[in-house]
């Protein structure tokens, strides 16, 4: 199969524009240096830019002609490359996610990006840019069908016995517009606050009384925070607009997005872990979010990013119910770290504040003009010492771990409380570590690692050293037990199949 013909003009336009612009600016800066035999001005510059555009377009035509893909019973084969050729085959069983995305222009043209994720490597395994939207959907459906066919062939059942997957799709979750608005309002990402670092640059320089500038500064910061909140809400709104999660046989399908539309599939058999998140506001109103983690990546995500295939917001009960559809787990009682961990946090925060105060004090003593406020600046961090016990308590309260029948659960974080659910049979390694400071208080952390690439591992932080040792061994044993159980199940099933055939 070839890519969509419209991919030539689309790629040529986007790549050609950047190539042309680059050549234009390179030419202009070189022209100033008078290093070239031909003076770079007016027509010569335009010609150079045009060469870039035409060159890029020609390259796209060649790329299109040389790009071919084929879906076979074993997997997806892709032959590509203009100068150096590359043939690649992705086995069906290794495919983790199949994602389709379309931005506004691509939607108007009726084309889409098809991304195939596998567990290996640091990036998307294969990306078809661009195929027709219908073709993308066909490939996505076909991969699931072939996969099931391969499994059926292995276990000996006839593929025809199964109903058409299109009819069996059940909608698990739809985001109502009210929920979307609420989600946008509640999901302030604190990372946006880092944009405030650019605040001073945006500050208009007002000559005047220092006190006024201080007040004005505070006002401006407040305004900026509100603006960031609106920005964050807008981004969330566009991201999760018209979100819908369906279950199609043994796959989850999701659709979402206003400007850029995403449409992806996650095989349930590939789920590595579940993540339930709730920030302070969400917890206050009884809401939570759910992310399903696989070893592939979510669409439009850097390798370290989180899974997009999730329930963006629902009431806690609904999220739990949905999570149980994906992974049947019970929620055992969480054990908190021992109270000496809380003391540790308090000491840590106090030390940080003291250090900050010392730095401010030193700065003011060495270079500082008198502060625009009637007391030394170093007092500000010290004032926060009052809330240290509260902060330490909150941090301690929100930590914990729980050992269930088939899953291990960990919980961390106050501002955003993250609960991770890891099935034992997905555990890759178990790492127990204790820093010098932890050892002083007989504490240790246990990290339960899976092959999930969504970022953020399940960690039981600051548990008692002896408990940590037990947890480490328990998780290892439970992994072996669950593997044995799965083997037994597989054996029974194949026995059943063979007896049915007899």
């Amino acid at each position, binding site marked *: 199969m070839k890519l969509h013909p419209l991919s030539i003009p689309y790629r040529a336009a986007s790549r050609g524009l950047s190539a042309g612009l680059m050549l234009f600016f390179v030419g202009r800066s070189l022209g100033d240096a008078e290093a070239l035999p031909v003076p770079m001005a007016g027509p010569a510059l335009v010609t150079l830019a045009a060469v870039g555009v035409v060159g890029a377009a020609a390259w796209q035509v060649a790329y299109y002609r040389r790009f071919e893909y084929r879906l076979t019973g074993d997997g997806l084969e892709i032959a590509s490359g203009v100068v150096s050729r590359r043939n690649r085959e992705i086995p069906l*069983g290794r495919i983790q996610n199949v994602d389709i995305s379309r931005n506004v222009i691509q939607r108007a043209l009726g084309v889409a990006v098809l991304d195939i994720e596998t567990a290996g490597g640091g990036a998307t395994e294969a990306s078809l840019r661009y195929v027709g939207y219908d073709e993308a959907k066909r490939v996505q459906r076909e991969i699931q069908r072939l996969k099931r066919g391969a499994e059926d062939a292995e276990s000996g059942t006839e593929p025809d016995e199964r109903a058409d997957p299109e009819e069996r799709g059940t909608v698990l979750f739809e985001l109502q517009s009210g929920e979307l608005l609420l989600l946008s309002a509640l999901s302030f990402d604190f990372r946006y606050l880092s944009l405030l670092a650019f605040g001073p640059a945006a500050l208009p320089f007002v000559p005047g009384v220092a006190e006024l500038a201080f007040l004005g500064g505070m006002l401006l910061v407040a305004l900026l925070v509100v603006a960031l909140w609106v920005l964050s809400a807008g981004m969330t709104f566009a991201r999760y607009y018209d979100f819908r999660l369906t279950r199609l046989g043994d796959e989850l399908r999701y659709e979402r997005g206003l400007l850029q539309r995403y449409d992806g599939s996650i095989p349930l058999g590939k789920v590595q872990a579940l993540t339930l998140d709730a920030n302070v506001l969400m917890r206050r109103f009884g809401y939570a979010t759910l992310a399903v983690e696989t070893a592939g990546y979510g669409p439009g995500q850097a390798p370290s990013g989180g899974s997009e295939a999730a329930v963006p917001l629902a009431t806690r009960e609904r999220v739990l119910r949905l999570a149980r559809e994906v992974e049947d787990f019970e929620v055992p009682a969480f054990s908190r770290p021992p109270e000496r961990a809380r003391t540790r946090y308090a000491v840590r925060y106090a030390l940080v504040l003291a250090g900050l105060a010392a730095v401010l004090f030193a700065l003011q003593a060495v270079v500082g003009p008198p502060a625009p406020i009637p007391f030394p600046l170093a007092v500000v961090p010290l004032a926060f010492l009052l809330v240290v016990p509260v902060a330490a308590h909150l941090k301690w309260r929100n930590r914990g771990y729980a050992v269930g029948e088939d899953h291990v659960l960990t919980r961390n974080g106050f501002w955003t409380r993250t609960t991770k659910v890891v099935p034992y049979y997905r*555990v890759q*390694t*178990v*790492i*127990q570590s*204790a820093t010098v400071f932890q050892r002083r208080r007989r504490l240790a952390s246990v990290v339960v690692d899976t092959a999930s690439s969504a970022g953020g*591992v399940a960690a039981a932080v600051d548990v008692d050293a002896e408990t940590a040792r037990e947890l480490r061994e328990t998780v290892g044993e439970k992994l*072996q037990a669950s593997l044995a159980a799965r083997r037994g199940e597989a054996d029974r099933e194949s026995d059943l199949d063979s007896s049915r055939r007899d």
Partner: protein
Amino acid sequence: MEVLNPRVRLAWGVGAVVTAVIVGVLAAVVSRFTLGPGVTVGLAVALGALALGLVFAVLRYRTWRFEVRDDDLYLERGVLTRVNTVVPFVRVQHVDTQRGPVERALGLASVVVYTAGSRGADVSIPGLTPERADDLQEQLRRLAIESERETDAV
């Protein structure tokens, strides 16, 4: 529990010397342009770094131990941060042996175990004799294959 070959201290010692030299040269250059005296400061910093590195090498050797258990490989190590790792054989993707120039000169080898985990994806055991490294590699490979009855490892 198995401990490493004592010669690994020498290998780490060589590493400490190299680091000390680099740090010393850097310190000398920086101090030459800021404080004035170059060589003395550089030498002092290098000696300090070397002493630290050697102490670390000794302590590191003392804390390093590992064990091939029934179902998994278990490692204990770490001077400042104590780390205990459990690597189940089922999760082993492949096993390498490695021999760097220093290790070759000292007659040592390392075994590196790869898993599909997102963190600590490779676990390496340094300071083994080449025979022990080959044995361990073979043993881990065999155990990994024996326990590999699942079709879906990831």
